[in-house]
């Protein structure tokens, strides 16, 4: 209508007309993101169920096969991923207090830590390949009990860590976009919803790893001890 009631620039660009106010708009985004994350929980849940079912069916094969994983690399990588969760939380915090340079710095740090994680993961995959622990024609689980069922463990190992790594790769793409947008000043203390929603995704990926680490690396570790 009259030109003098046109809202402030930020409100024009960030508040969609179908929301009553910024708070309601942000709540709608948060709820939508969590509904998506719930579908992700069920997506990974199916793989976790497959793991539990086969582990209770073939405990000996799973115990000796899981001892082939590298405890030190697993724990170090968990540490790296938790660090990236902290930097992501700090990125959201920086956005919420309107510190653009810090926001960009923390997003870049998150990307770098994620890169280190996948680098270590690639090294572990290579190690498995070299030691014939990839299920298939050349599979040979040296010294495994019930070796006939050992490929089940490694199939689940590659399937679960692979799906997790795929989620991280998707995260990298979104992170790069967010870094460029943040550097250009797209996000302000008033509106930084995409940063916060991506934070939820990144922390979710961290949580999946928090469960993968004990299940794939730790259970039955006492059979070989610390090495």
């Amino acid at each position, binding site marked *: *209508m*009259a030109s003098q*009631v046109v*809202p*402030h620039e930020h*409100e024009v660009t960030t508040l969609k*007309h179908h929301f*009553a*106010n*910024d*708070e*309601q708009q*942000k*709540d709608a985004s*948060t*709820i939508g993101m*969590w*509904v998506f994350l*719930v579908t992700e*929980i*069920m997506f990974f*849940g*199916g793989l976790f*169920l497959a793991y*539990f*079912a086969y582990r*209770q*069916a073939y405990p000996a094969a799973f115990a000796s096969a899981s001892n082939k994983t590298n*405890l030190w690399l*697993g*724990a170090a990588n968990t*540490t790296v991923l*938790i*660090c990236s*969760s*902290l930097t992501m*939380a*700090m990125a959201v*915090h920086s956005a*919420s207090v309107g510190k653009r340079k810090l926001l960009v710095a923390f997003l870049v740090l998150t990307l770098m830590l994620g890169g280190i994680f996948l680098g270590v993961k690639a090294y572990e995959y290579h190690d498995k390949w070299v030691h014939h622990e990839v299920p298939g024609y050349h599979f040979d689980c040296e010294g495994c009990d019930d070796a006939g069922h050992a490929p089940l463990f490694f199939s689940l190992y590659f399937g679960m860590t692979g799906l997790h790594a795929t989620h991280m790769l998707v995260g990298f793409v979104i992170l790069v976009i967010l870094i460029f947008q943040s550097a250009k000043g797209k996000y302000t203390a008033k509106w930084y919803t995409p940063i*916060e929603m991506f*934070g*939820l995704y990144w*922390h*979710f990926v*961290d*949580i999946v790893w*928090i*469960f993968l*680490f*004990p299940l794939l*690396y*730790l*259970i*039955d*570790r*006492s*059979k070989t*001890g*610390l090495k």
Partner: protein
Amino acid sequence: MSAHSTQHGTHQGAEFDSDHGSNHIVPVRVYVAVFLTLIVMTWVTAFVSTVDLGRLNVFVALSIAIFKASLVILFFMHVKYGTRLTKMIVLAGLYWLILLLFIAMADLWTRTWMGVPGR
């Protein structure tokens, strides 16, 4: 249009939950405390796993994982400061996950408890 723009920036608390906190800013020290706890628990669970506790190994490993995941969900993901609707969606998701895992595993665990004729 003019009525719409006057609503901007006002808090319409009556329409939403009273424990509303979508703009809550979590202090940095909370993040650091959660982070340090997560790191310590990661290495605790790694070393405890090398000690033979029998069946307790699984219990300890999963308990620590659940504790760590809860910290991430509550603080890093702001669910502690979120709306009731967000909390309900999170709990509903976890509830369905528990249904999936426990009903299927209860079947597999108990299937062999009683003899099956002809097997």
